């Protein structure tokens, strides 16, 4: 029982990282832009958030936790939006190939984060922002003490709950508001949307930038909460970014599915550590290596089942990956 709880306590924070990445990408893809730069954007957001929190903590005499959260969030949002802007300008205005631009952005973002990260590390293998970490990881005061339920439900940092709220807001936005419907129209058929008087370029820009900002929060959450406020030169965020892209397809472009999908991913990801103790067996280390493939195999199986059902509403936006040029119809 206790290892089950420990498992959930690892899975939900893990899921939250890729949930942010995936929700950002859902918004972006709804406008018809396939942004494979999510890992890069998560690097930018994570690093900017960490760097700002780190300098704020170390350069001010009496750092205020709330202010450090605000500063880190703001910097992460700005940095990831700028990353999104590079992508948006190249693919929307200059109509560059979306896949290559996204991959280049991933390379670029990873380079920027790790390059400047070295200056903060300054020779050591990691550096930390303990104050910001404490603020980001603060549990809900009274409720988290309420026995097992309190531990499992209420003992996470505020970004975990914000992610769930955001998923619900996005669901409402995409399916219940005029702007959301317009956005979906742009992603399905930009020419028709254009004819209906929707400003395609503006929608694509806003969606891509907002999407990047949301994805960037995933990186921030990884560094300042999940990773205990520690920055080290890492390739881990890239792997998480790809998982986020995978989760988008897994959720069939629906924000509400991202909630349970992300937590399921988290459970499966940590399976290798908790399965042996749950079943009360010991497993040789080479078998542990094999168990690590379970989340990916399950994803493949779900993918196949979804494709077997062939439902219309489970399809990607029809014009995903294609640049829109008004005179070319």
């Amino acid at each position: 029982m206790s290892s089950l709880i420990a498992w959930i306590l690892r899975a939900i924070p893990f899921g939250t990282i890729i949930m942010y990445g995936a929700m950002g990408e859902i918004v972006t893809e709804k406008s018809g832009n396939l942004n494979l730069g999510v890992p890069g954007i998560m690097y930018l957001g994570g690093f900017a958030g960490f760097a700002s929190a780190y300098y704020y903590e170390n350069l001010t005499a009496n750092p205020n936790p709330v202010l450090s959260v605000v500063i880190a969030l703001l910097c992460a949002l700005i940095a990831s939006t700028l990353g999104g802007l590079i992508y948006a300008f190249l693919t929307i205005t200059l109509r560059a190939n979306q896949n290559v631009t996204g991959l280049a952005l991933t390379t670029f973002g990873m380079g920027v984060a790790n390059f400047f990260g070295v200056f903060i590390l300054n020779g050591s293998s990691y550096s930390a922002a303990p104050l910001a970490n404490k603020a980001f990881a603060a549990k809900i005061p009274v409720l988290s003490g309420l026995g097992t339920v309190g531990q499992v439900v209420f003992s996470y940092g505020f970004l975990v709950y914000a992610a769930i709220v955001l998923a619900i807001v996005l669901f409402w936005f995409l399916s219940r508001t005029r702007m959301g419907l317009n956005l979906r129209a742009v992603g399905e058929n930009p020419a028709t949307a254009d004819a209906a008087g929707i400003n395609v370029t503006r929608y694509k820009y806003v969606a891509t930038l907002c999407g990047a900002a949301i994805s960037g929060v995933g990186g921030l959450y990884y560094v300042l909460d999940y990773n205990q406020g520690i920055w080290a030169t890492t390739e881990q965020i890239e792997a998480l970014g790809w998982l986020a892209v995978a989760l988008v397809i897994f959720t069939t472009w629906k924000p509400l599915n991202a909630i349970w999908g992300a937590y399921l991913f988290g459970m499966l990801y940590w399976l290798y550590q908790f399965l042996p103790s749950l079943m009360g067996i010991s497993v040789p280390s080479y078998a542990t290596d094999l168990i690590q493939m379970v989340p990916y195999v399950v994803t493949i199986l779900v993918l196949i089942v979804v494709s077997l059902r062939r439902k219309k509403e489970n399809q990607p936006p029809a014009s995903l990956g294609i640049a829109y040029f008004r005179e070319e119809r």
Partner: protein
Amino acid sequence: MTKATQTVHEPLLRIAKRDGIPFGKKVLVRAVAILLALVVDALFIFFVTGLNPLAVYGVMYQGTFATPVRISWALRDLATLLCVGIALAPAFKMRFWNIGGEGQVLIGGLATALTMVYLGSSLPAPLLFVAMFVASAAAGALWGFIPAWFKSRWNTNETLFTLMMNYVATSIVACMTNIMRGQASSLGTLNKATKAGWFPVLFGQRYTINIIVVLVLTFAMYAYLKYSKHGYEIAVVGESENTARYAGINVRRVMIRTMIISGAICGLCGFLIVAGKDQTISTTSAGGRGFTAIIVAWLAKFNTFYMALISFLLVFLERGASEIASAYSLNEYAADIITGVILFFILGSEFFINYRVVLRGETHKEGK
């Protein structure tokens, strides 16, 4: 439309599609783009590190060209990256999003390594190489075939499928290296004593075979895509599956066949890496090339000779950056930034090749 209404409603800048652009101008646009990117990178280097950018670029050049050994390393890396690019080209030309190059390379490398270890002492050298070749190509082909089969049958999303196959391959490699190394802390060099399954040194060069194989593949893939019936079918399926079906092309078969070829060449690349370069296998043997090669293939529009040029540019930057890193005690991630900026500029420059910006009041010429 009368002239008066035109000037009232026309925006200041307007974008029009170009019909075609002379070859010389195309080269010029790209050269300017790379030059601008280098200027931006120079500014970045100067403002961040305070170093003289020209000196830094000089050091960068040394990274590839300073000594014959470095040139041979650069050629080896170029061959490896280009090989994955060649493998991915037919898949992407067919609009099949094979982002599983990484896994296909890894599983090919693993098949090679297993053959080396378990058959290295029992087979004569020529047979061993044949076995390694067949095993790696078959393993890679299988990794390409699985997603292709599901895609052709039930239209299963191949982007996610191939991406997931990367992780499956990584797990298998981790598991097998774990078994092979036994109690040792790492796998180390395979067949160190016998050198069974190592590519021999040819013409005084360790990597001659790698380079020759990739060179042959470059020509072969160019011809395959451009002049063969298969290549034509790939192009038609890539443009429109419905058109292909209407023209009597068996889309399912083309898809599966192309992915088997794509996967097999990726597997072969794993063979080259294990037998000709590292003489060992690890989960990072593919080194992200499965993703970088997508950039290579797309930017070159699947022309294998352009792919060689772009691979060279990327390898040059990577080697140059690690040289900068050690010369100025910076870190190698500078390479990623510089590469990213150059790619952004090249991608952006395509706009000026495909479109032209028309100023208000300029006469309309695109009609003729």
